């Protein structure tokens, strides 16, 4: 598949296009906060609109490919991919029995890390491979447990229950590496659909299902990280979970016969459980049977899920009860509550990027940063008129916004953040400060608007009643502001 992708897709035109676009866009990369590949390339689609998980350039997405989701998928393609993963994994047993354990270990070590997919918790998008000793331990399972030796694994993620140091990230990486060839094709296809530039890259290795071996230094056409130039591979959202359906913690919590594993008052050690599992294949098998039976409940985890209406109302009530100022950490509480609330209220029109802390002129400032997906007219307008590739909301639990607050936000409004910024504060701007923002618009075409408790209340009301979208309240504030500006 990868070969097909290489030959079929990689045309000189595309490489040329990438170069041209890359040169235009690269200068903007530093300006975006927590940049994503789509925003970087000027593709303004929200996560909800895309089939794949949008990758960040500087850190991993904290989700994992769960092979069980492929097995459980109604799609024959996904099921076939699961079969490919399982067959490929069981082939290690064949290699081992044919006197090639070193080759099997080489393959396992190589497949144990897949940086290109950007999944996990790494802050640098770089992980480390397993040791040869650990790979040997995995291989020993085929030798030590007769069932696996004879029939192989049906859900290879079960190795988490036998081997110390193998957890969800490794399972995800093994899975991705075994089907990397498919993922390359998938990435190319998604890039074509969404006009994401791709370019020729050399991948260290791609698993060849036909030969059950690794093809080294394979050329492929993929999107790249504009900073590190490392290739990027997309994964479908439907395969991602925070924890695999079959995992050690779940097993230990509800299926592990602890009284058989530990003596009374003995410290709970994972190694003991793993050793017990190796000697009691039946217990693990029963766990798998149970997980298969309950597989109807196995769903992928969304990359972002909105808070329920009840929770939104509670958070609003907590905010309204808070005093202004810093007494009893009111400012921190206000910021925490607001962050949760705003991220949900604006979804899916604005994807939440992160909260950001900064200090300016000795004042501590906390912002909420959103990606501007431009999917409604108002967001498109602020992109066009104010260059907002992202949107900043500065949270201020103060009674009155003063001149210095406005100056601080004004100084911050540049680059990818654009010239449109929002204060989330308790009360409307005092008249003089409102006039200040009008003057700012008149002189510099910068727009600062204030969302207040009242606006927040309306946003939560419409969030509950679904009569309008909460983002429309923001639009309303903007329109009110523009009506006050000189024509």
């Amino acid at each position, binding site marked *: 598949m990868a070969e097909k992708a290489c030959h079929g897709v990689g045309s000189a035109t595309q490489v040329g296009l990438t170069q041209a676009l890359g040169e235009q866009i690269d200068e903007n990369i530093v300006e975006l906060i927590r940049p994503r590949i789509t925003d970087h390339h000027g593709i303004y689609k929200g996560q909800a609109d895309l089939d794949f998980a949008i990758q960040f350039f500087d850190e991993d997405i904290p989700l994992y490919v769960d092979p069980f989701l492929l097995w459980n998928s109604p799609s024959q393609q996904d099921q076939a991919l699961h079969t490919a993963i399982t067959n490929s994994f069981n082939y290690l047993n064949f290699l081992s029995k044919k006197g090639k354990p070193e080759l099997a270990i080489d393959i396992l070590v190589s497949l144990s890390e897949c940086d290109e997919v950007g999944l996990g918790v790494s802050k640098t998008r770089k992980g480390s491979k397993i040791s040869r000793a650990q790979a040997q331990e995995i291989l020993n399972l085929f030798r030590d447990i007769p069932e696996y030796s004879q029939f192989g694994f049906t859900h290879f993620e079960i190795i988490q229950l036998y081997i110390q140091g193998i957890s969800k990230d490794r399972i995800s990486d093994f899975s991705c590496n075994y089907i990397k060839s498919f993922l390359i094709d998938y990435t190319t296809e998604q890039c074509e659909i969404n006009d994401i530039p791709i370019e020729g890259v050399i991948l260290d290795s791609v698993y060849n299902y036909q030969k059950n071996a690794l093809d080294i230094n394979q050329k492929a056409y993929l999107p790249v990280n504009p900073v590190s130039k490392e290739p990027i591979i997309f994964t479908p959202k439907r395969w991602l979970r925070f924890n695999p359906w079959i995992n050690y913690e779940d097993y230990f919590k509800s299926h592990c016969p602890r009284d058989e594993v530990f003596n009374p008052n003995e410290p709970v050690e994972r190694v003991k459980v793993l050793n017990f599992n190796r000697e009691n294949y039946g217990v693990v098998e029963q766990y798998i049977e149970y997980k298969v039976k309950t597989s109807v409940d196995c769903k992928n985890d969304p990359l972002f899920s909105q808070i329920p209406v009840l929770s939104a109302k509670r958070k609003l009530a907590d905010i309204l009860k808070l005093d202004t100022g810093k007494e009893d950490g009111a400012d921190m509480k206000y910021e925490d509550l607001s962050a949760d609330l705003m991220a949900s209220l604006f979804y899916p029109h604005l994807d939440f990027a992160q909260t950001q802390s900064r200090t300016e002129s000795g004042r501590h400032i906390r912002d909420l940063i959103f990606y501007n997906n431009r999917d409604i007219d108002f967001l498109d307008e602020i992109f066009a008129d104010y260059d907002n590739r992202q949107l900043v909301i500065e949270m201020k639990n103060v009674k009155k916004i003063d001149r210095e607050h406005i100056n601080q936000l004004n100084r911050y409004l540049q680059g990818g953040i654009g010239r449109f910024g929002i204060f989330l504060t308790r009360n409307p701007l005092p008249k003089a400060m409102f006039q200040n923002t009008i003057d700012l618009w008149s002189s510099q075409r910068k727009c600062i608007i204030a969302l207040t408790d009242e606006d927040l209340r309306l946003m939560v*009301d419409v969030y509950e009643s679904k009569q*309008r979208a909460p983002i*429309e309240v923001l639009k*309303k504030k903007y*329109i*009110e502001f523009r009506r006050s500006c000189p024509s």
Partner: protein
Amino acid sequence: MNKNDVDIFEKLSGQLLSVYEEISLLSKKSPNDAVNKFKLKFVNRLIGASNEYLSEKYRPFDDFEVFDEDDVPQNSDVVFILSQYIQCFEKLRSDNVVVGVGGWYWYVEGEDGDSTDEHGMIKIKTVKPKKLKD
């Protein structure tokens, strides 16, 4: 005013009243909730037709045309405005009705074929002006 105006009056005032009653119910439950775009479209259509019908003399506010969808009007806003229109419709009616045998009547211009009085006017049965007490 003529017979046709009375027809239009009855249609518009009836619609205003029913929309007012509907949105009043919503407003009692959650006065600060926004009115959705679908309802707002028809409220605006009704208000637009009323503005045209009432003319400057009877319009409740000369600087209010229709609701701006982008202002995210709330239930209580819509109820407030509709109640003003209902009042103004009633004012127009009060100015064009007379008491006669058996109750109150519109007193409007007749058309060819109508049995008009000496002033060319006809009477159409209506109800008593609401501001009058029994």
